[in-house]
């Protein structure tokens, strides 16, 4: 689905860019993609083997009740009317009620999503912040000892199951060393002190001046963030290394050396500028998959996040909640694609018209 959306984005943007101005074409491309996303989720909702009527009334109810609910849900209406209703509901943020919590789905998402964003953002900062310099360094030391060590360690980091790392991390840093807090977003006795403003606990606690809560949240988040970011870090560093090696064999590198620049200056002032576009692509994709699929780490650390929410609703077949989550992931990727598209233009003059 992610692939499909990207392809849709790219082709739409391509067609429209030739006709309209850049800004207009971006807006149009987003709208078209969003429409496609809504159509897709609508179709998925229709073909899922879960009967929405049975999900509400249960399989003990009689035929009369079934028919009444069937009508109330509008399922007797023509498809295009149903689709129109679906779109207007979605646009208004009316996703229905979640069975599991008994609250509107939108309220649930507002609660769980910031927890995941907070975790994934710290994870990607760690992943890119460590991975990129490591990859550049490995490239400059190609085939030497440092390169081999970095490649070996990142291969291990990339291949190790994240839930295993999570458990080992908890044993080591929580149980033995005490450097990290336990599971959840804060220690249990700090729960509920800070009312959500942005939903990001680190920010909310800092705004309200609840520093005890802030430190507890920081102690709790660093370990899952680092572990979640480890595979991104490994992936980003290996990709950075190969992007960098490709650039270091280019002629302009010789030009820069012949001007009298040192090898290090050439790397940062010239070669690095040329891998930024590729880095944006892989970091954005890595960030997207962290936001969407941190299920394992959220389970290990009892993190009340989006991945855990989506999984538990999938298990009980609550289509309201699942479709809202799918839609959110889709919108997220549209947003990240848009951001990458803008950054491409900033970083590469050849993509500006």
């Amino acid at each position, binding site marked *: 689905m992610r692939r499909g959306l990207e392809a849709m984005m790219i082709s739409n943007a391509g067609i429209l860019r030739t006709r309209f101005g850049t800004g207009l074409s971006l807006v149009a491309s987003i709208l078209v993609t969003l429409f496609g996303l809504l159509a897709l989720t609508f179709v998925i909702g229709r073909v899922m083997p879960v009967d929405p009527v049975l999900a509400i009334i249960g399989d003990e109810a009689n035929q009369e009740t079934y028919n009444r609910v069937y009508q109330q849900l509008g399922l007797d209406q023509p498809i295009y009317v149903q689709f129109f209703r679906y779109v207007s509901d979605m646009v208004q943020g009316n996703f229905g009620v979640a069975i599991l919590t008994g609250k509107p789905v939108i309220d649930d998402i507002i609660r769980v999503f910031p927890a995941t964003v907070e975790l994934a953002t710290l994870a990607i900062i760690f992943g890119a912040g460590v991975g990129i310099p490591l990859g550049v360094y490995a490239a400059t030391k190609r085939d030497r000892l440092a390169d081999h060590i970095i490649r070996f360690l990142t291969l291990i980091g990339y291949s190790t199951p994240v839930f295993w790392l999570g458990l080992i991390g908890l044993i080591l840093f929580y149980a033995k060393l005490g450097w990290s807090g336990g599971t959840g977003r804060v220690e249990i006795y700090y729960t509920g002190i800070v009312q959500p403003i942005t939903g990001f606990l680190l920010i909310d606690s800092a705004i309200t001046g609840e520093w005890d809560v802030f430190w507890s949240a920081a102690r709790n988040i660093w370990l899952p963030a680092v572990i979640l970011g480890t595979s991104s870090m490994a992936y980003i560093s290996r990709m950075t290394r190969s992007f960098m090696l490709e650039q270091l064999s280019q002629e302009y590198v010789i030009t820069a050396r*012949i*001007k009298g*620049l040192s090898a290090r200056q050439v790397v940062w002032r010239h070669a690095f500028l040329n891998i930024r576009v590729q880095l944006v692509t892989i970091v954005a994709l890595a960030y997207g998959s962290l936001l969407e699929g941190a299920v394992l780490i959220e389970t290990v650390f009892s993190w009340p996040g989006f991945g855990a929410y989506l999984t538990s609703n999938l298990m009980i077949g609550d289509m309201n909640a699942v479709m809202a989550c799918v839609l959110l992931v889709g919108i997220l990727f549209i947003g990240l694609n848009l951001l990458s598209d803008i950054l491409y233009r900033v970083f590469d003059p050849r993509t500006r018209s």
Partner: protein
Amino acid sequence: MTDPILSVRNLNVTYLSSRATLNAVRNVSFDIGREKVAIVGESGSGKSTVGRAVVRLLTPSAKITADRMDFEGKNLLSLSERKMQDVRGRRISMILQDPKYSLNPVVTVGEQVTEAYRVHNKVPHKEAKERALAQLASVQIRDPAHVYDLYPHEVSGGMGQRIMIAMMLIPEPSLIIADEPTSALDVTVKLQVLAILDDLVRDRGIGLMFISHDLNLVQSFCDRVLIMYAGQVVEELRGDELGDAKHDYTKGLLASLPRIGDRRGRLSVLDRKDSWSMPVEKRP
């Protein structure tokens, strides 16, 4: 020949790998004064390797040795990497073949020229920019202020090569290595670029090492010509005496050139002899 700026004796470049050693350049000796010296040879003859060995910009697997590689009284082979960075650009610079690849695609051409000056001269950016604009004008770029802010993909091949030359001239080097500087250009632009290089040698007294495979061109353009084959210099001639070459390889190359007005029969093909690759005598 004037006093040599660069004097090389028995230069050897060897690529070491775990499987084999490759002698890319063998006992090459030459002097370059304030003149145009061509190094010609076919692909793989080692001519570009000689150029890059002089500035020590070969891959780390290449081992460079020489009895002497003196430049302005310094032995280039004994300089530290830090000292070598002072020589590169400031004293010796190099023009590469195709500006499409030799300019950094994401940096404006003006910034690239300015950088070449600021590497060696600690001056404010504004002053360096003025120098760069003047230098661009001196290689016959009509609107330097406009060109300054362009990116490499926005300029033509000929202008790109003039920008490259401006970038290499700005710290005022005394030796320029031009590695096939006109091979990627069309004929009219080629002549403009050659005229600029010619002026440099005549007016500023710069030494020019002109690496090429174009015999017709070096015959008319260069003062002296070194012919390389299989990593060795097999013959050294004055440009205008190229027709009197004695070595079979040089004669073979000249014979295989098409000539306007000739009958369009088959061109002669090199009949390679093993003796051409035999080690030549070392020079003292």
